[in-house]
């Protein structure tokens, strides 16, 4: 596979003070779905904005599809499709009119644009609503429209910036299926940013975890999870004394506090270690309140490399962001 995007020490500093992206180095191969995972403010959107030439980097370089983003920005814009985090469709136009307008930005011949428009609208099940004004669309419908507007000119590279932000679980799953189908049908390289771990896990072939503008680790989701070398047994006991005692349990990799009366026990293989831990509990006549076994997830990977959980970081933030977007479009 050929490299289609490569950044070298890409940096963006806002107002001479805020370092949003800090010497970012990533390499993306053609045909991949590449995930950038990180909490809000990690630098994901700034990275996308630089790669899509909407903002200029402060220093460093990036090559997109063979073109330098600073010196050949127009050539870059011709071969990419973008689905930004915010809604961009004009709500005073219909879904189809929005798509046809954008097709003209790329000089797509009219007959070809009409055909592609029909195929894409059908693919995301918006064909019935295509001739309605966008202002009448639900949040999920708008997101689906945004997705296909970015594809109307059949780009080689598609940037998806938080494509399912604020959507309900059912619509999110539906969007994942569309993204997979798009990648399969059009063989387009997709760069996906998200702070939904399951989204990256489900869609991406390669992942970079970024935080505070820096790449912390890159690999396939499986590689990242395997790098943790172990399962987590989370155990809540009736009191803190019992929890402290659990720290003496033998033959485990690590025991750490993880809340009131709760410990996290890291083991190589939970299937083998669980009976030993249960024996330890009965020997010491401890009372347990809750016991859960977790195979490694990307959240655990994130916790490992950043020292905090992405889920805690994001509590409610995405919902607020989505509500803000909807308010903006309804004004």
């Amino acid at each position, binding site marked *: 596979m050929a490299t289609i995007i490569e950044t070298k020490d890409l940096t963006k500093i806002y107002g001479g003070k805020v370092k949003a992206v800090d010497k970012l180095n990533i390499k993306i191969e053609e045909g991949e779905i590449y995930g950038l995972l990180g909490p809000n403010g990690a630098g994901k959107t700034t990275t996308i*904005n630089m790669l899509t030439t909407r903002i200029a980097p402060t220093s460093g370089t990036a090559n997109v599809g063979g073109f330098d983003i600073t010196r050949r920005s*127009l050539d870059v814009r011709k071969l990419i499709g973008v689905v930004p985090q915010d809604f961009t469709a004009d709500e005073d136009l219909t879904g189809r009119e929005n798509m046809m307008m954008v097709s003209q*930005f790329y000089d797509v011949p009219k007959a070809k644009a009409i055909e592609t428009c029909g195929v894409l609208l059908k693919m995301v099940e918006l064909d019935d609503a295509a001739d309605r004004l966008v202002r009448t669309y639900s949040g999920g419908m708008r997101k689906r429209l945004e997705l296909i*507007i970015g594809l109307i000119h059949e780009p080689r590279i598609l940037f998806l910036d938080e494509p399912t932000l604020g959507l309900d679980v059912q619509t999110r799953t539906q969007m994942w299926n569309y993204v997979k189908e798009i990648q399969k049908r059009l063989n387009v390289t997709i760069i996906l940013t998200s702070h939904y771990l399951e989204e990256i896990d489900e869609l991406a072939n390669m992942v970079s975890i970024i935080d505070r503008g820096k790449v912390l680790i890159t690999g396939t989701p499986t590689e990242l999870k395997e790098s943790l070398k172990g399962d987590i047994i989370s155990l809540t006991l009736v009191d803190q004394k019992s929890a402290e005692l659990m720290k003496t349990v033998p033959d485990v990799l690590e025991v750490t506090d993880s809340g009131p009366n709760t410990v996290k026990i890291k083991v190589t293989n939970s299937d083998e270690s669980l009976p030993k831990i249960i024996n330890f509990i009965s020997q010491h006549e401890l009372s347990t309140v809750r016991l859960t076994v977790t195979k490694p997830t990307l959240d655990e990977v994130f916790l490992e490399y950043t020292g905090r959980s992405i889920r805690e970081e994001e509590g409610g933030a995405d919902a607020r962001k989505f509500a803000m977007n909807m308010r903006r479009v309804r004004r």
Partner: protein
Amino acid sequence: MSGLWPLTVRELKKWIRNPTFLLTGLVQPIFWIALFGSAFDITRFFPGASSLVLGGAPNYITYIVGGVLTTMGLFTAMFAGTQIIFDRRLGPMGRFLSSPIRRSSIVFSKIISSVIRIMPQVVILLVAAVLIPNGLKFVHGFTILDALVLATAIVLVAFIFSSIFSVIATRMTNMNSIFGIVNLVNLPLMFVSFAMFSSQMMAPWLANVAQYNPVSWSAEAIRMVIINGSLTAAQWTQIGKWLGGLAALAAGLLLLTAYLVEKEIRD
């Protein structure tokens, strides 16, 4: 891949699909001419006004039509910039900036559409001015050439002020700021000009400043063809100077707009 055509069509579709915006834009000029023109008709209480201060116009409405048409163009053009801020705040700007269109097309589509929007207003205003009692009178006739002078003057004024306010808007994100600037300058631009009053009716210092205001050049050019009909060579020369001044200013500002917007427009 200039994007100018699809973006201009978009602007016009939005205009047509917004009945309130469409209707108020069309009705407002009628209020202007009917209320302002009738209320300030000085020929009713000052019989010599026509020849002394109104340049030979038979009534005040005939005198101010040129001024009202110009200020209507001015006000419509000033709001071209607000649409840029709307696009930025509501999201479409992000789409435009990540596509390979010329940045200047985003702004020029607003400018061109605001000029197009003015045209039906001009026609409606002229018809209304003729129909209202003691309204617009073409004492010496009105030719196609006169109509061309009228349209050219308004279009140039619209280009001038929509360029200025579009460039200002490309540097703003707050809607209140642009409204504040529009409100701050619209009345001075109108009243420090010969749009509503002749130089004889103004304080000398005000008349002196007003002669450099492009609003005055347009109002005077339109007024000259409406009041006089067939013009003398000297009058055509004067109109040439006014329209030439407007054209030079419009061309300079449009070039400056294209240059600044390509460099400056942002999300």
